[in-house]
């Protein structure tokens, strides 16, 4: 089921959606699903369910580290569907974020079938551009799944036009040139990119890369349709002494972020 209604609801409430990323399988599959439930209970609207991958070229050290540890404890691609089912069951949008090769190896059509059956909303594909995504676009359309492609500050008007034309659900605007990771400042590039993107699409535009606290979420939420937070959430889990402490820290940060998007346009 598409995340479009979730974004619609947030828009009706006069706020940006809060989108939180966590990798499946860290610290364990069950632990990661419990963490996703904490996010939903703390006000996160859409969960980005991360697929741990051996060669994550778009990720900074925090998410790389979590992926390595998840793979080391034996997370499997099929665990993604378990997580999607749990997230959808908890009432949040369940988008899967994955590098392309795991989907390719699993089989694009088979992956789309299983994701739709689990209640997943669709895919965010950081290393798959629409130009190379013919099979995925066809499968997503057959299974009524969202296709979230990325745009970047370096994107030309031609690229913005081509990419947004193939998106469904929302457009993922990477706020800065660089890999994932919390940053002191999200920068002016994000606002400019959102404006430029809107010249090419009526889809919601959500901003990711760098947001780490409620104030930044409020700032980004003033101009974006959704605020995407990843590394800061993951760090709550990787730096915790125990899984329970990790969940506690995660809840505190998620509520701070939710309050941030809540006051963003007030």
């Amino acid at each position, binding site marked *: 089921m598409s995340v479009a209604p979730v974004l619609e609801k947030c828009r009706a409430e006069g706020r940006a959606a809060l989108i939180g990323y966590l990798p499946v399988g860290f610290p364990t599959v069950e632990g990661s699903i419990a963490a996703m439930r904490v996010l939903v209970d703390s006000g996160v609207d859409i969960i980005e369910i991360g697929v741990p991958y051996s060669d994550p070229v778009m990720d900074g050290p925090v998410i790389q580290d979590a992926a390595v540890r998840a793979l080391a404890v034996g997370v499997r691609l099929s665990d993604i569907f378990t997580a999607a089912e749990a997230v959808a069951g908890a009432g949040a949008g369940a988008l899967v974020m994955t590098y*392309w*090769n795991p989907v390719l*190896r699993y089989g694009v059509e088979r992956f789309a079938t299983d994701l739709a059956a689990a209640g997943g909303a669709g895919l965010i594909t950081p290393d798959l551009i629409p130009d190379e995504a013919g099979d995925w676009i066809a499968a997503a359309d057959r299974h009524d799944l969202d296709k979230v492609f*990325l745009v*970047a500050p370096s994107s030309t008007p031609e*690229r913005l036009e081509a990419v947004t034309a193939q998106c469904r659900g929302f457009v993922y605007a990477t706020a800065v*040139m660089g890999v994932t990771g919390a940053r002191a400042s999200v920068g002016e590039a994000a606002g400019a990119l959102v404006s430029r993107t809107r010249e090419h699409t009526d889809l919601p535009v959500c901003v990711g890369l760098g947001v780490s606290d409620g104030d930044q979420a409020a700032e980004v939420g003033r101009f974006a349709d959704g605020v995407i937070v990843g590394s800061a959430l993951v760090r709550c889990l990787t730096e915790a002494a125990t899984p329970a402490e990790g969940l506690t820290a995660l809840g505190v940060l998620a509520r701070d972020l939710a309050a941030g998007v809540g006051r963003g346009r007030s």
Partner: protein
Amino acid sequence: MTAKPSQTPTPLPLALAGAADLPRGRFGAFGGRYVPEALIPALEQLEEVWRKASIDPEFVGELERLHKTYTGRPSIITEVPRFAEHCGGARVILKREDLNHTGSHKINNVLGQALLTKRMGKTRVIAETGAGQHGVATATAAALLGLECVIYMGRKDTERQALNVARMRLLGATVVPVDHGSKTLKDAVNEAFRDWVANVGTTHYVLGTVTGPHPFPEMVRDFHRIIGVEAREQVLDLVGRLPDVVCACVGGGSNAMGIFHRFLDDASVRLVGFEAGGAGVDTGEHAARFATGIPGVLHGAYTYVMQDTDGQTIDSHSVSAGLDYPSVGPEHAFLLESGRAEYRPITDVEAMEAFSLLSRTEGILPAIESAHALAGAMKLGRELGREAVILVNLSGRGDKDVHTAAEWFGLIDSDDDADGRRGRLPDDPGAEGVGEQQ
């Protein structure tokens, strides 16, 4: 010997090499551009600048001048009759890319990309390196052209190729050891991509082989194509006919594409690539992508990848850092599937035997990477017999490998029991030592 009609010096073949008959960025089903959107404008700019440069006499002339006055091109060929005795008596001819400045074929590509970097108005280059040869070549070109240079290298490779780390630093480059994953070439590439995404406005990524997102596989091949262009003429002059087989080692596959490409239309010439069989293909400790891999995406290209059933990359293994890579250039995947080229694994033991043999029979220390091609020539020669003419791309020299080879053959004095040695040099009269018995 009669002169060949085409004796005029061969101009750089860049303009001739455009793959107009192939869909853009694809070799059959392979290739493509699987990278974050943030890099697409840089790849488009690179392709545009490169296509224009490749037909610009000023660019072609400048690269040709550098190759003549700096690289040392054309590189010679050397017939190696004493080594050939171990190759079933076939005639064996080496293309001596090891004699290029910096010691390998890598400089061909790097000078081209460094000139393109200047044309794009960028001031900083980054590169990955495995054996260190591409890193040394990039650091060299950066020094020559006044570019800032950062080299990413897996921690494991910095240890087994320590001499090349020092060389890069002497040349003014910053060498960043990479501690992620398998700590080898694959992880160095990941880190270079991360740097590039963040700094693409000022930085060009001098990718070191014929893989990665389009246009790298095609562009890097074209910068290396001069190897085969020269070698084909040289073999014709020496032998009076084309070789029966062209051999090259294949890591990412740039030296192999460089020597293969000019022979693609010569149907009588077999093209054989040798990948790293490591401890043996059945042990799982290898880098034999074509023997065990399946098509998938890694580092921007759709090609053969060593991967598990979930699409996670499997770590590769090889005594040779330059071949220790779980993927391979997409054009090689195409040549395999189309049947134009063959690929075979060579084990560490076979490669080191060839390393030793060439050193002792011809006085040429090959790079361990290139020793895989030599070992392949030994096998092919025995299969084909005395009438065969085998051209081997000696892609690099072995100076960087002296430490690895010395350890392998137990040539370093130590207190360890000699039983721990993995190899032993054959017929070494000094093996027992002279006047040193204890």
